[in-house]
C-alpha cells in the first residue's frame, strides 16, 4: 500500500515535470526547421531563422532595450532594496512589518492595474518619455523581488558579526562590506536574478508605457507574431533559454543553486 502511494506520487511528479518542460523543449527543435511555419517534428535543418533575427525590423533594438532596461532596473532595485531592507530589519522604522508588506505588494498586484496606474500617474506629472516611464515602472516591478530575498537573508544575519568586525579594527562601512555583503550574497544574486527576469519579460505593465519607437522585447515579439508567425520567434526563444541556463550555471558556480532557492 505504502509502495503504491510512493509510485503514484512519483508518477504524478514525473507527469507534471513533463507537462512543464515539454512546451519549452519543443521550441528548440522547431527553431532549426527549414519550413516557414511552426511545425513539430521540424523538417530538415537550417539556421535561417537565427539569421532572420537580425533582419526583422526592430527585433534587435527591442532585445537591446529590454536588456538595458532590466539591467538598470535591477541595479537600482538592488541598491534601494538593500538599504530599505537594512532599515526594516534593524527596527529603526515604526511599523516595520506593515511597511515591508507594502513594499512587497507590487508582487500581488495584477500587472494591468499597476500599468494603468503608472500610466495615469506619470502622464499626470508630465512625464511623457517612454524610456524613463518604463524605467520607473520596472524599478517598481523589480524592487519587491530584491526586497524579498534580501529581507530573508538579513533576517538570518547576525548583526553581532558587524560589531565583532568593528572591534577587530573595521570602520562601520568596511565592516558591512566585509561581513554583511559576503553573508547575504546569495540573497543578492537570487534577488537580482528574479528581478532581471521579471523586468525582461514583463508585458502587462510595459504595454501601457511603450511608444512606437520604444518597444520592449515581449511587446515586439507579440507584434511580430501578429504580422508574420514564422519560426524566428522560436529562434529568439531558444536564445533566451540558452541565456537563462547560462546565467543559472554561472550563479551555481558563484554561490550554489542550493543557497539560491532554499526550500
Amino acid at each position: 500500500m505504502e509502495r503504491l502511494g510512493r509510485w503514484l506520487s512519483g508518477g504524478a511528479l514525473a507527469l507534471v515535470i513533463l507537462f512543464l518542460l515539454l512546451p519549452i523543449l519543443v521550441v528548440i527543435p522547431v527553431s532549426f526547421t527549414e519550413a516557414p511555419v511552426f511545425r513539430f517534428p521540424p523538417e530538415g535543418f537550417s539556421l535561417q531563422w537565427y539569421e532572420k533575427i537580425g533582419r526583422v525590423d526592430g527585433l534587435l533594438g527591442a532585445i537591446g532595450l529590454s536588456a538595458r532596461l532590466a539591467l538598470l532596473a535591477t541595479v537600482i532595485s538592488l541598491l534601494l532594496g538593500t538599504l530599505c531592507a537594512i532599515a526594516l530589519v534593524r527596527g529603526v522604522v515604526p511599523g516595520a512589518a506593515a511597511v515591508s508588506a507594502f513594499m512587497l505588494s507590487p508582487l500581488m498586484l495584477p500587472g494591468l492595474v499597476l500599468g494603468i496606474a503608472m500610466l495615469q500617474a506619470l502622464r499626470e506629472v508630465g512625464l511623457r518619455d517612454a524610456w524613463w516611464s518604463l524605467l520607473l515602472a520596472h524599478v517598481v516591478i523589480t524592487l519587491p523581488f530584491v526586497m524579498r530575498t534580501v529581507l530573508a537573508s538579513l533576517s538570518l544575519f547576525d548583526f553581532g558579526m558587524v560589531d565583532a568586525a568593528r572591534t577587530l579594527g573595521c570602520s562601520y562601512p568596511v565592516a558591512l562590506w566585509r561581513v554583511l555583503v559576503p553573508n547575504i550574497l546569495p540573497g543578492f544574486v537570487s534577488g537580482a536574478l528574479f528581478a532581471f527576469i521579471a523586468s525582461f519579460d514583463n508585458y502587462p505593465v510595459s504595454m501601457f508605457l511603450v511608444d512606437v519607437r520604444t518597444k520592449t522585447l515581449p511587446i515586439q515579439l507579440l507584434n511580430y507574431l501578429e504580422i508574420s508567425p514564422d519560426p524566428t520567434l522560436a529562434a529568439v526563444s531558444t536564445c533566451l533559454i540558452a541565456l537563462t541556463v547560462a546565467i543559472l550555471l554561472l550563479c551555481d558556480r558563484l554561490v550554489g543553486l542550493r543557497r539560491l532557492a532554499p526550500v
Partner: protein
Amino acid sequence: MNDQHLAVRGASKRFGTASVLDDLSLAVARGEFVSLLGPSGCGKTTLLRCIAGLLRLDAGSIAVAGRDISALPAHRRNVGVVFQNYALFPHLTVAQNIGFGLRAQGVRAAEAAPRIAEALALVRMAEFADRPVTALSGGQQQRVAVARALVVRPTLLLLDEPFSALDRKLRETMQVELKHLLREVGITAIFVTHDQEEALVVSDRIAVMNAGRIEQLADPATLYQRPASLYVLDFVGQSMRLGGTVSAAGLGEVTVETRLGTVRAPGAFAPGSRVVVAVRPEAVTLTETPPGGRNTLAARVSEVSFLGSRTQLHLDLPAGEDRGVVELPRLPPGIGPGSAVPLAFPIADTMVFPAA
C-alpha cells in the same frame, strides 16, 4: 591598586527615559579579571558595549592605560570582545576568522601567518585551521572567538556571557581553561555574566551591579562572606535570612528578635530598627548543645535536597522576607520533611542588614 589599567568614571547612559548606567565608576588593575555580575537589565552588557565603543556614553569617561578612549570609535580602541554567541564569520575558515583583525589592521600576510598559527596553537585549534567555523562544536567556537580577539593584541579583553551557549559540563571545564589561558597571556579581562557561580570561578574581583550602579566590588570571598547589602547577599550564594527588630544594642553587637527566636550579630543599629539577619547555609549546624559564641534557633524542615557533596534543608518559614536554606555535609538520620531541627551558628558569622 594604583596601577589602574581600565578606569571608568561617572559613566551614564540612557535609552529614552530609562537610565541604564547611572554615574558608574570602576577601576581595574593591569592583568586583573573582573566580572560584572547582575540580573538582565542591570546595565552590565551596556557597560561592556560602552567600553568596546559599540555604544557612546552620555556622560563620563573611559580610560585604558591612562589614555582617554571615550571619543574613539570602536575600530580604533583596540579592545578585544568575545561575544555571547561568538559572532564568528560563517563565510570564513577558522584561520581566516582569526586573521580577520590582522587584515583589518593592515598587517602583511607574511607577518600575519605566524601570528595566526601562534593564536591557533594557544587555543589548541591548530588542526582545525582550514575548517569552516560552522563545522565546530560550541567549545571549539568559543576558542576560535577568544583567539580571534587575542591575536590583534588588544589592551583589554571583554567577554559577554562567554559560557552561556555551552552545556553545563563543558562550561565548567571551559571556565577553568579560559581563566588559565588568559592568565598565561597576561591580559586584563572583564567578564559579563548573570551566573554567580561562573563569576566566583573566573574572577579576581566581582562587581555586583544593580540598576545601572555597582552595588559592591570585591573579591569573591569578601563578596560571599561580607556582602555589602541584602541585594548582594541574595544575588551571590544562598542564605538563611530572617526579618526582625533590634531589641538591644551595644559594644558592636545587636540583639534581634526574629520569628524563630533571639539572634545576636555584630553590627550597630538603634534599638527598634527593622533589620534582616542572615547566615550562609554552611555556617549552620544541627545541635542542641552548641559550644559558646553561637546563636541557637528552632525550626521545622519543609524539604530536603540531596546535592551529592552536601545536602540542603529548606526550612518551613512564612512567606515574606524570611528565607531559609541550610547546608549540611551529611544528613543526620531521622531528618526529613516535617522534622523539628535545632539550628546553631556562630555569632561572628551572623550578618545584619537594614530591612529593605
